[in-house]
């Protein structure tokens, strides 16, 4: 603890820690000092001078953001001297400002506007010509109006200190200094949108919502971001009931005050053109609008008319826990056991050994305390940008050693110890090598189920170094990411990760993929467990229902989809499509219906998007966060929990008389609270195998950055900002080997063949991909026509 000292601010005595900056002290006690360049999460630049205050014995006013407190210091923040310094500063800051508030998106929520009202004068001594700065095009997400910039450099410091990549800078000097990228360039950071929030003026504003509405016309509602397992707090802004903008919310323990671009700009998807506005039933191939009663009656009828074993239920892990719970409860009540949310997983080998849910293994803030981190099959930077931010802090603050085992190299925004890159099959061996090294380090016995696999690999120096780093670190962790879950040998990767953690003392953690992956486990949307992990006799191992792959390989007669678009959300779009084709009836509870859905489905029940319903998400660390509806959905759209509740009534199930979503949540919460502890620990008991050797080109089908769920896929600005999602990526050696040089040279298309489908796609040479592999992202338009995310693929010119 640092020493406490006494100071006086505005004649109030305060006891504060020595060495803190004055502005932190005044902020803590609620004395407002005006500021532009100071931001609590960024380094001190002290360049705007707006925070000048009077300090006893100081010859001139001092900047509160850069003045450390001293014993006995006397400060006046609103004395005549302080106020006049602030007023003069304000006058200087406005010299070159265009004062175009009437047409500025920031108007009404602008720090410059507010402070000039509060601290500025009513006229300016400056009569000369103002300067004009030409606007820069920095991409689809952020619009610029650089004449308004007051050069506080918050955006620059954000890039360097938080985003971990300097993209914006101050070029030129003096009155010609400009903020920009200097050469025309789109911002590429996955956190770039945060500069909109921190820019104190209207220089950087959100491009997709530009000129839509004024700040004071919008309603703000706190909510939870729906796209990754961080559970970032956001504020949804609605205008006349429509969701028009999203900004960061604050939660120090979760997202601090930052959000990913995905969470900020995905809202556009909510207003997509293919939103369904009323329930629909297909009769003789023709869609007919029906009322809710008729729609739900037919659903109930259909479900009652078939053998429950012929029903397959697939749910999106982006659905709220209330929706997932009611889905599970109603389906199980009528005897349906085939229910799953693990849409991209293909290896369910030892699903019984999973803990209550795929837990992070620690709190989000604890990530910063790690000294060694092994990432297995994870593109954490794109998958969970704000967990990556915590890992970055671990690297910066305690020199954490970050190591990866992945199928492609990742362009991290921090220094990593080692990236161990190989083809998807080969990463099993790489991880086995590390496991073997960890076993010999701790002189443990090889678990029987892994002995064949471990016998076949050699412990090498790389593996040994990784195991040692994990073992020697005070805090270390092995994280399994989304690519592991998608991997055809996920259970083997998981077992190996468990062995490594066991033998090195590292925590085992999961970087859950979606906003409510954890919630789906808790709600019992898995074929082998009911809510709160209960294994009743209905779902015990011999009687467990079918998992996603089984449901798709042996088509069910009836499918119930909860916000699932099979050709985008499932591992193998071709098989998923075949299953939908073969089904007698597909019932889709979904906010959207694209052409495919209209072909596949027979009954569509339009549900509300995340912004239009109350609900709860459980994040990777297991924190439950509930939110309320912020926007109105069109009149015949219902929150999915209500749809399912009424469906429960129609099916004649007891206990479906919930009045609000909180009733649903509380019922589940009570059940979950009886589970005493959460752990990722499991005994290696099954037999784990090495992948079969495969020849030929291998696909790596990591989920595209903005294609993880139905809402993001429809967010137009995000999609435009990431054209690389729809291309074939391979390294230059592979280009040579496949004789694609000319194709690359002429930027022409290649033919991609997987399963029974061929299609043309652009190519991008990316040397971060290993030999023998191509990266074709999953969840995209093009991949919706292809097969499994992993496996053989052909590329020809």
């Amino acid at each position: 603890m640092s020493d406490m000292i006494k100071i006086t601010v505005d004649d109030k005595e305060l006891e504060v820690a020595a060495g803190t900056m004055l502005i932190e002290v005044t902020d803590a006690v609620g004395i407002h000092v005006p500021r532009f360049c100071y931001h609590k999460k960024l380094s001190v630049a002290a360049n705007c001078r707006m925070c000048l205050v009077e300090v006893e014995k100081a010859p001139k006013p001092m900047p509160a953001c850069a003045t450390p407190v001293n014993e006995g210091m006397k400060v006046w923040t609103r004395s005549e001297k302080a106020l006049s310094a602030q007023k003069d500063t304000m006058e200087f800051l406005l010299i070159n400002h265009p004062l175009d508030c009437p047409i500025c998106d920031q108007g009404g929520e602008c720090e410059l506007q507010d402070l000039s009202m509060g601290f500025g004068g009513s006229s300016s001594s400056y009569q000369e010509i103002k300067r004009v700065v030409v606007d820069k095009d920095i991409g689809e997400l952020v619009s610029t109006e650089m004449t308004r910039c007051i050069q506080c450099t918050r955006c620059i410091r954000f890039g360097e200190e938080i985003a971990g990549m300097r993209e914006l800078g101050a070029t030129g000097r003096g009155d010609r200094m400009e903020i920009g990228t200097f050469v025309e360039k789109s911002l590429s950071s996955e956190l770039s949108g945060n500069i909109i929030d921190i820019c104190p003026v209207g220089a950087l504003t959100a491009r997709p919502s530009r000129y839509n509405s004024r700040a004071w016309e919008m309603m703000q509602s706190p909510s939870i971001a729906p796209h990754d397992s961080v559970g970032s707090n956001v504020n949804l802004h609605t205008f006349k009931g429509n969701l028009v903008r999203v900004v960061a919310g604050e939660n120090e323990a979760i997202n601090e005050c930052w959000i990913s671009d995905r969470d900020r700009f995905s809202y556009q998807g909510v207003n997509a053109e293919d939103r369904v506005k009323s329930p629909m039933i297909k009769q003789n191939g023709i869609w007919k609008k029906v009322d809710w009663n008729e729609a739900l009656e037919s659903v109930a009828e259909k479900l009652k008319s078939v053998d429950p074993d012929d029903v397959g239920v697939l749910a999106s892990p982006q659905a709220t826990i209330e929706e997932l719970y009611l889905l599970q409860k109603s389906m199980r009540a009528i005897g349906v056991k085939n229910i799953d949310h693990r849409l991209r997983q293909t290896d369910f080998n030892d699903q019984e050994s999973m803990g209550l849910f795929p837990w992070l293994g620690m709190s989000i803030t604890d990530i910063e305390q790690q000294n060694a981190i092994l990432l297995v099959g994870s593109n954490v930077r794109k998958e969970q940008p704000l967990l990556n931010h915590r890992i970055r802090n671990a690297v910066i603050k305690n020199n954490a050693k970050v190591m990866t085992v992945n199928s492609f190299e990742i362009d991290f925004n921090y220094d990593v110890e080692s990236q161990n890159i190989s083809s998807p099959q080969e990463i099993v061996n790489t991880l086995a090598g590390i496991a073997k090294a960890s076993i010999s380090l701790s002189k443990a016995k090889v678990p029987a189920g892994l002995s064949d696999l471990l016998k076949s690999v050699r412990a090498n120096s790389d593996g040994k170094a990784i195991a040692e780093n994990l073992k020697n670190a005070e805090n270390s962790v092995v994280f399994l990411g989304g690519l592991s879950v998608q991997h055809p040998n996920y259970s083997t990767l998981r077992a190996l990760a468990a062995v490594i953690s066991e033998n090195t003392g590292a925590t085992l953690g999961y970087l859950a993929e979606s906003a409510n992956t954890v919630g789906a486990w808790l709600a019992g949307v898995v074929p082998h467990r009911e809510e709160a992990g209960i294994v009743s006799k209905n779902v015990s191992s011999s009687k467990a229902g079918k998992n996603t792959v089984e449901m798709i390989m042996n088509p069910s007669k009836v499918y119930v989809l909860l916000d699932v678009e099979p050709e985008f959300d499932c591992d193998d779009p071709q098989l998923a499509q075949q299953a939908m084709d073969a089904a007698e009836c597909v019932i889709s509870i979904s906010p959207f219906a694209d052409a495919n859905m209209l072909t596949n489905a027979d009954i569509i029940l339009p549900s509300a998007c995340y912004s239009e319903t109350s609900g709860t998400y459980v994040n990777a660390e297991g924190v439950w966060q509930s939110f309320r509806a912020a926007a109105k959905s069109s009149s015949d759209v219902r929150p999915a929990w209500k749809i399912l509740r009424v469906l429960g009534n129609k099916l004649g199930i007891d206990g479906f008389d919930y009045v609000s979503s909180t009733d649903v949540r509380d019922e589940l919460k009570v059940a979950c609270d009886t589970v005493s502890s959460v752990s990722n620990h499991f005994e290696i008991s099954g037999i784990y195998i090495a992948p079969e050797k495969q020849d030929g080109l291998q696909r790596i089908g990591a989920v595209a950055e903005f294609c993880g769920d139905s809402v993001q896929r429809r967010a137009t600005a995000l999609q435009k900002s990431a054209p690389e999602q729809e291309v074939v990526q391979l390294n230059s050696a592979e280009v040579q080997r496949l004789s694609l040089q000319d194709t690359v040279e002429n930027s022409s298309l290649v033919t991609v063949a997987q399963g029974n489908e061929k299609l043309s796609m652009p190519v991008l040479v990316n040397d971060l991909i290993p030999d023998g592999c191509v990266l074709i992202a999953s969840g995209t338009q093009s991949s919706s026509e292809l097969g499994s995310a992993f496996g053989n693929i052909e590329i020809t010119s």
Partner: protein
Amino acid sequence: MASTPNVLSKHERDDIDHWLKRYPEDQSQSALLAALRAVMHEDHYLSIEKMDAVADYLSLPKITVYEVASFYSMYEMDEKAAGKNTIAVCTNVSCMLNGSDKIVEHIEEKLGIKMGETTPDGEFFFKIEEECLAACCGAPMMQVNHVYHENLTPEKVDEILESVKTKPSLHKKEANNG
């Protein structure tokens, strides 16, 4: 990081390496001014390509290089400014009071170009110098290739310009792409 070994000439790289040796290993940014100077000596201006190459060579973000290059007036970033000899006439207060306008006029007439332009043969670049060059006691003054010339008269200017021109050039420009 994309290595761009051929963008920087051998001479430039040697020069940068020489400076790099003077600073701690993790402080490569310290060599940035010198690196840009090395490029200036060779090309007489900083192209984006060269600046990017310097950024890669020193493992710095590109924007850092642009910031530094655009801050100092000794660097030119426009290809049009790439003359073999750079003339900068001070037009600040002391020089102005002592007739710098006439000097400017004389040079413009003599070279047939305006301030801010380069002669068609690439021999002279007439820079717009905006700040006092700190030689007020010798006003009017000018700087030619970093050498100060004071108490100027049109005749003296002629002499100076002839002398730099007749000598092949202070900076030998040899294409040297090692």
